[in-house]
């Protein structure tokens, strides 16, 4: 089914966490489709399963978490069917990841140069001199000044923005086909955010990579992404191109989300979606958004909605649009 220009297709992905409190159904049938050279924003509130989706694609879910079922077709292969070794080869080389807390993502007792070198070394054996040159090239590529000095520094000597550039350097070492960015700018201040986003945009267009950009900031997503998928409580409720999602959102959750974004010149109180995320151990039967949904119907309490394609490239999971 997956067409030729699809790089990544996630179908019906289920990831559960087996905790003492019960089974946390973190992902309940996630569907995503990402083409080549596309930047897709994955938005949703905290706890909606954005990061779990990213980690599931990387197959980095640790016990007590487990990927239960589904398919993750990446470049024609189902990642969930690969052996551990094959998957390890893909990580860092074809898919790589950028993290939210850049300084926590760097080993505090390893020098910057050694850490970047490690990213290269794991996939390619190089001579010492070549390795050093490759590291310095990467540092230049992410716009860090004075790389010769930098390679001998420790992460705590770097600012947040610099650390994020180092993390990006590690991620792009092999020009990955897919870059997963898990809220890469959330912990940075606004001016640095803009710089990092610019850098990402430049690098991505230069490498021809696709990006899965996880964020809870709709403004950032609107600026950077061609496509946006909205997640709620472990499912993707709506997915389409960026323009349409702001112009003509279909799912009641998306509608609420966009209403809640403060606008220039706006007065009075901000719009809020009533209620809170459901407990994922005992999610409501039927549609997971139904208890908070202003347009809930009888059927929403009983059966979960199917994901249907309303228009080409515009997918929504809501009974309002389910036929019959």
């Amino acid at each position, binding site marked *: 089914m997956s067409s030729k220009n699809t790089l990544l297709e996630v179908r019906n992905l289920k990831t559960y966490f087996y905790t003492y409190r019960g089974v946390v159904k973190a992902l309940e049938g996630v569907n995503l489709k990402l083409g080549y050279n596309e930047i897709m924003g994955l938005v949703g509130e905290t706890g909606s399963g954005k990061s779990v989706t990213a980690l599931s694609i990387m197959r*980095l879910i640790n016990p007590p978490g487990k990927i239960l079922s589904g398919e993750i077709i990446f470049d024609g292969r189902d990642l969930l069917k690969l052996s551990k070794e094959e998957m390890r080869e893909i990580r860092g080389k074809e898919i790589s990841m950028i993290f939210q807390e850049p300084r926590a993502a760097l080993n*505090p007792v390893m020098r910057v140069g050694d850490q970047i070198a*490690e990213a290269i070394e794991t996939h390619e054996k190089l001579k010492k001199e070549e390795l050093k040159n490759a590291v310095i090239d990467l540092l230049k590529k992410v716009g860090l000044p004075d790389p010769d000095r930098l390679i001998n520094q420790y992460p705590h000597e770097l600012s947040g923005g610099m650390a994020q550039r180092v993390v990006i350097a590690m991620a792009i070492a092999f020009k990955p086909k897919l870059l997963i960015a898990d809220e890469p700018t959330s912990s940075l201040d606004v001016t640095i955010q803009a710089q990092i986003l610019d850098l990402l945009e430049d690098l991505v267009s230069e490498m021809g990579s696709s990006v899965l950009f996880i964020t809870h900031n709709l403004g950032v997503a609107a600026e950077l992404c061609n496509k946006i998928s909205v997640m709620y409580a472990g499912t993707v409720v709506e997915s389409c191109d960026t323009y349409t999602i702001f112009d003509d959102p279909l799912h009641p959750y998306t509608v609420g989300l966009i209403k809640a974004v403060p606008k220039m010149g706006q007065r009075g109180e901000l719009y809020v979606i009533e209620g809170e995320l459901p407990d994922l151990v005992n999610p409501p039967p039927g549609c997971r958004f139904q208890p908070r949904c202003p347009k809930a119907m009888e059927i929403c309490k009983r059966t979960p909605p199917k994901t249907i394609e309303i228009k080409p490239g515009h997918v929504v999971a809501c009974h309002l649009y389910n036929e019959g």
Partner: protein
Amino acid sequence: MKLLESLSKRYKRFLEERRYQIEDMKLIFDLWKKSPLTMLGTVIVISLIFMAIFVPWFAPHDPLEQDVYNRLAPPSSEHLLGTDQLGRDILSRILYGSRISLVIAIIVVAIACSTGLILGLLSGYFGGVLDEIIMRVTDIFLAFPRLVLAMAFAAALGPSLLNTMIAIAVTSWPVYARLARASTMQIRNEFYIEAARSIGASDLRIMFRHVLPMILAPIVVQATLDMGGVILTAAGLGFIGLGAQPPTPEWGVMVSEGRYYLSSQWWVSTFPGLAILITVLGFNLLGDGLRDIFDVRMRR
């Protein structure tokens, strides 16, 4: 001239590159200077090591040389700490005994430490069934008093110095396994471990390059404290006849041999006993000091 210049340039660059390590060393040295007990421990341990290495150059007598006309002689200028029941010079025997004790301690701790460290790393990193198996085995070992277990092993293997070391090593590794496991489990959940996995680093690489350096400090402290314990256990085995055998100048054996003469010729047992005491004390003081120095919470 040019050589000198380039050397000084290199030295400056080295200082610049390593300035954090150098600062750290300075801090450690300051902390060390503040604690007289740690200094005492360090002095004892270092002099013990020197003693063990250089005994042949300054021991007054051969430790095995018997002088039957001079049996059980009290301390004198000829025999500073007296002689034992075969007329051997006790001071020389104690000096040579330091070699045995130190070698036992180093070998045993090296074996126990590396075994425990690797098992603990595996256990803490992978968790699950492997963790369960390794930890239950360590529980079994930890359920027995150390000396009793060592006695059982030594008795089963037959008394000899090598078997003593094996017996003590077998009883010492569980502590390291536990320590390593606990710290590994803490480090395993750090973001940079996940980041390392996300660039495709293998489990082995992560364990040895990222986890191991972070958990080393408590292990080093434990190893230092353990040195004293191992020496004590080895002396205990020697004392009850399951460790080193006479005429080896091992401290436990010497205490044991002198115990028949304790009421009249007290020096035969007392001096080797004191040697054990001082050595164990030295290692314990050093270990405690290291623990304080490595404990980041105590700094600043």
